[in-house]
């Protein structure tokens, strides 16, 4: 590993951390698509800034571009407020228009702008180490490392300083307002930080992939935890992990670094989406199946309690009567037996004492409209779950 490689990985990791922090709040505030809008619409800001400064890394350019990002948010909110179109349509109308203006500006001035539309979309991380920041003759590292480092530092300072406010206003807007935190200031503060981060990261990973770095780590973390601090930490971890592994993937395939970082993020998300312990698809499907069986069991027990006649309680009759398939009937019957809810004598099913108490309690809850309590009761009665 040479120093350029280390620097690239360092820049990539810093970018992912800087994106993960605002991204977490955007995901929680259901504003993920705003980051998409910002990342597109900063383009005209960057182009205009570039015309003025002639330097892609100038601070003025970042300020101008971030301003365009905030303008986008204001525009979207203005259109939403007129009520002429639904909210998401407003987002979809604003950013393509601004992005088009940016593309046209670049195209019309293609000769004197060293700005490539492709680079705008994907960024060129591999070139980042070659643009050095030289202060009074001393080389102190790549420019983009400093830029993203400063942005990250500001973001982290703001995060620590306003963590409480951000947390309250994210989860309970009304409470935050009544406690005296201005929702508008927090909202626009977050939007400004997102815009600045987008601009800073833009250089490294391009406009669209910033969206991936903002949303994917946060969404992945959200599937694993419901604790805000843990979610932030996890999002940062996923970000760094995919930044470094993505770099080596790109190295291996000789392809775009930003593209492979995103691909790594995608793979991590896919894995978590499928296998997350309680919110993953497999866990959810398993739980749904469990619940179906348990509801069937309850139906079965209620039926037994209602009927004392022998013919109503015959094993085969139950299947005909409740109209279950063979496998399902067998599963339910076995579950009931395992939990000591029923006994089977000569193919006649009858409730045990335990089964009887369980059923009476369940009926009580059902007729008093407290169905949710049955779930808690199951913990007391069930030795085995469905």
């Amino acid at each position: 590993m040479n120093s350029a490689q280390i620097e690239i990985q360092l820049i990539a990791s810093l970018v992912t951390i800087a994106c993960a922090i605002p991204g977490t709040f955007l995901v929680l505030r259901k504003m993920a698509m705003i980051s998409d809008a910002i990342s597109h619409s900063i383009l005209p800001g960057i182009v205009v800034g570039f015309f003025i400064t002639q330097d892609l890394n100038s601070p003025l350019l970042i300020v101008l571009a971030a301003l365009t990002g905030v303008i986008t948010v204001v525009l979207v909110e203005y259109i939403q407020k007129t009520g002429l179109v639904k909210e998401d349509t407003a987002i979809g109308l604003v950013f393509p228009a601004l992005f088009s203006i940016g593309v046209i500006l670049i195209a019309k001035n293609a000769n004197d702008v060293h700005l490539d539309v492709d680079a705008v979309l994907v960024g060129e991380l591999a070139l980042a180490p070659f643009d050095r920041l030289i202060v009074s003759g001393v080389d102190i590292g790549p420019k983009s490392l400093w830029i993203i480092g400063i942005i990250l530092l500001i973001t982290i300072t703001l995060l620590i300083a306003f963590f409480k406010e951000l947390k309250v206003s994210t989860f309970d807007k009304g409470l935050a307002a009544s406690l005296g935190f201005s929702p508008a200031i927090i909202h626009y503060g977050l939007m400004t930080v997102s815009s600045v981060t987008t601009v800073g990261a833009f250089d490294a990973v391009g406009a669209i992939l910033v969206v991936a770095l903002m949303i994917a780590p946060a969404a992945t973390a959200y599937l694993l935890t419901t604790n805000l601090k843990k979610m932030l930490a996890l999002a940062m971890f996923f970000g760094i992990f995919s930044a470094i592994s993505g770099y080596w993937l790109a190295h291996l395939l000789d392809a775009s670094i930003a593209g492979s970082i995103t691909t790594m993020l995608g793979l991590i998300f896919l894995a978590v989406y499928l296998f997350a312990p309680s919110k993953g698809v497999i866990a959810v499907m398993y739980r749904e199946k469990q619940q179906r069986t348990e509801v069937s069991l309850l139906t079965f027990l209620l039926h037994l309690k209602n009927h004392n006649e022998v013919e109503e309680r015959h094993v085969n009759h139950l299947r005909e009567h409740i109209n279950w398939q063979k496998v399902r009937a067998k599963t339910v019957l076995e579950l009931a037996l395992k939990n000591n809810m029923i006994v089977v004598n000569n193919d006649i099913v009858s409730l045990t004492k335990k089964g009887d108490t369980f059923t009476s309690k369940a009926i009580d809850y059902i007729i008093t409209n407290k169905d949710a309590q049955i779930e808690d009761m199951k913990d007391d009665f069930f030795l085995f779950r469905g």
Partner: protein
Amino acid sequence: MDLQEYFSLVFSDYTLRTITLGTAILGAVTGMLGSFAVLRKQSLLGDAISHAALPGIAIAFLITGAKDSNTLLLGALVSGLIGTFWIRGIVKKTHLKSDTALGLILSLFFGFGMLLLTFIQKQPNANQAGLDKYLFGQAATLVESDVWLMAIVTGLCLFVLLLFWKEFKILLFDADYTKTLGFNTKVIDILITSFIVLAIVLGLQTVGVVLMSAMLLAPAAAARQWTNSLSKMVLLAAIFGAFSGVFGTAISASQTNLSTGPVIVLVASIFVVFSFVFSPSRGLLFKQIRFIKNRRDLELHKTLAFMYHIAETHENISHPHTIKLLNNFQGFTRKTLQKLVEKNYVTLDGNMWSLTEAGFKTAANLYTKQTTEDE
């Protein structure tokens, strides 16, 4: 070439005719289907699908090694559909909200697509150049067979739309009712979503991945402002879309260095802004005018009511009073007084005013009547 030249050439020049026809058809079909996307609150789905189509294009190229636009679009269609259904899966099975799901799929698929594109670019296959035209689209690469494909798909869309018009419409406005009527909502839903994906994929070559969503949204959002009827909206959206396509092509052809996609999007955006401002029933301009008119009417009524309360205390309702009396009352302006005179509610005599019979009667009924002729 200036605009005039463009319009004189458009019927004779093969390239111009093909491109213009292609963008017009594209605008029409996206406008048509976009109406459904907008009304179903799936506006941003188009954005996600168009980005999600990118890896499909790259994979189709990797497999076939050829740049035949039909195979590439087939790849785009498949990956667009996968993206769409994954979004649904995320929203349905996890607690992630739809905006997160959209942003996720959009950016992850696009990133993967970029990875593949850069990977392809490094391949020794000489054929690979030009795949990145799908990012921003290049209307100039349209050939007659592409236009035919678009026309066929549009025809198919139109046919299905007319065939299932009732089902689409009812699902759009009342999904639960549709279910109770016994329609298979899932099938209708998948049908309309697939057609939206199809329309987006068709546009990739012309407008590109990044800006395709605007083609879907803008004509529909503009059309929505002019009508409350679905059929009129679909028709209007198709017209707006087609015109955006034609004007966009015309403008970009008449200038050098202007790619067609962004110009078409900007033209469509201008349609939207125009509709937002000037639509008679919903537009901002007329809303503001109505607002001002209502305020003026209210002030007129306030002045009239104030006069009425003064006149009430006298036996002769037309007993003259000084105008000064009205000065410490806010609704009063000289203009409103003039208006009241015009309406024959008040007569002026120097510095004195007096209510007429008609004015007194109107004022007395002001709060009992639901409507007044003043409006």
